[in-house]
């Protein structure tokens, strides 16, 4: 376990000596800016209309956190679904195509050193992206008074969703030597996770309520929503911990499987 830092450090250095990291971060900032401006514009538009029609009940419900920051966080979590597979697709697949897998597996490292080191590298990068997201609601504190707690718990949600996506993307990368396949597999898995609540609500809710409940629990979106509402519940935190743990275990088994063949 001493070598996690060595693996993570190399991985991060490789990201930052190539244009990939900077490209992803710039793209991400631009997208975040666009979404934020759109959300602010929409927020103001709705506010004006409500005042015009004197819809005081709706107006009372209208606040920066639920109607602007929450929407913005939601959009950014979808953006992460596209970007993270791009970041993680090379984690293991490139080691195989470079032949460096042989270097790692014949060095005095444990498989956990490799798996946790690579996860840590991805998690650090996602943390940087989350900080970029956090800057935008930060601006609102200068002009309005959003709730600090809700703003932070939503940001925590982004962070946990991102880390979960990294664990899933890492696993997808570990099962193939082709980065394109790694990208597609992780993207499809993440998309499926996103669609689970809809499947639960419209597909099986009537016929098999128990199955619907399980499907809803498995979806990251449901737990993310709780955090957006400012509800930091151990059950939701546990969901993210379990998902990350399960995919890291699967990744470990997959890396180790080179040795079974």
């Amino acid at each position, binding site marked *: 376990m001493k070598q996690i830092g060595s693996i993570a450090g190399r991985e991060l250095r490789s990201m930052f*000596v190539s244009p990939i990291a900077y490209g992803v971060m710039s793209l991400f900032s631009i997208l975040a800016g666009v979404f934020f401006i759109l959300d602010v514009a929409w927020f103001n538009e709705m506010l004006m209309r409500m005042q015009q029609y004197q819809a005081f009940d709706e107006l009372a419900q209208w606040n920066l956190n639920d109607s602007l920051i929450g929407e913005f966080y939601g959009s950014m979590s979808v953006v992460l679904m596209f970007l993270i597979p791009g970041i993680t697709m090379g984690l293991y697949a490139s080691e195989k195509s*470079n032949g460096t897998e042989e270097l790692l597996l014949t060095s005095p490292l444990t498989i956990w050193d490799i798996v946790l080191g690579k996860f840590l590298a991805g998690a650090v990068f996602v943390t940087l992206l989350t900080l970029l997201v956090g800057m935008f609601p930060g601006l609102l504190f200068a002009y309005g008074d959003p709730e600090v707690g809700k703003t932070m718990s939503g940001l925590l949600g982004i962070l946990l969703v991102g880390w979960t996506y990294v664990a899933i993307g890492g696993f997808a990368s570990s099962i193939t030597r082709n980065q394109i396949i790694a990208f597609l597999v992780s993207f499809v898995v993440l998309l499926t996770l996103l669609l689970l609540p809809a499947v639960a609500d419209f597909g099986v809710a009537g016929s098999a309520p128990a199955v619907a409940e399980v499907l809803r629990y498995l979806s990251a979106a449901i737990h993310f929503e709780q955090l957006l509402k400012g509800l930091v519940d151990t059950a939701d935190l546990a969901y993210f911990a379990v998902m990350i743990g399960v995919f890291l275990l699967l990744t470990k088994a997959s890396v180790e499987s080179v040795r079974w063949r």
Partner: protein
Amino acid sequence: MIDARGLSKRYGDLAAVDDVSFSIGKGEIVGFLGPNGAGKTTTMRMITGFLPPTDGTAVVAGHDIFDDPIAARGAIGYLPETPPLYPEMTVTSYLDFVARIKGVARKQRRDSVDRAMERTDLTGVNRQVIGTLSKGFRQRVGLAQAIVHDPPVLILDEPTAGLDPLQIREIRALIAELTAPGAAQNTVILSTHIMAEVDAICRRVILINRGRKVVDAPLEELTADGTTLEEIFARHTSRDAADLEPDEPAEEAAS
């Protein structure tokens, strides 16, 4: 230093390596010969811990590869057939990373990296990105990576494959220098199918064919009566020789 005890690797019914045993003492430089597909790489991968043997085990510098895999792997410097390089890294940062994962202490790391680059004549390109280096230089980085942690045992898998004649000569001279008596890495297994390489560097020959060890003798002894290595190689690996193997009649009966 290296004790292979009945190493076998089977894929279903196919035996890639079949009950190979040998013992290599400190200071021995052994040429590991055999035609393509004979099981050279598989045997080396089992000793280095990349692949687990189906049967048998190996002991490297006193550490069993099953009981104490971390220590066994730490005692080996290994250059696989394709040098394991990260093309986007510079030579120095790459060697620093390898030194770290091989367990070189922080204080000694800089010295280890500098010495490895000196010994492989890489000092001039230390800041260059590996992806921009020529094939010969990349092979040198591969060698530097194998010796950076001063391992007592070196395992080199076809270190001159794919190089031009000039590069071959350079790399060969480098290996001879690295493994000279008195150097830290003087226990070496070097796989190749180039006979001249064995002549130039090795003092003992292990020949495997179809996964089995067929010759294991000092080079002098083999060539004492004037036969060349080529002849020995051909005698033991030709189709005729293979046809005489005891498992052949069974196949005939089947067909």
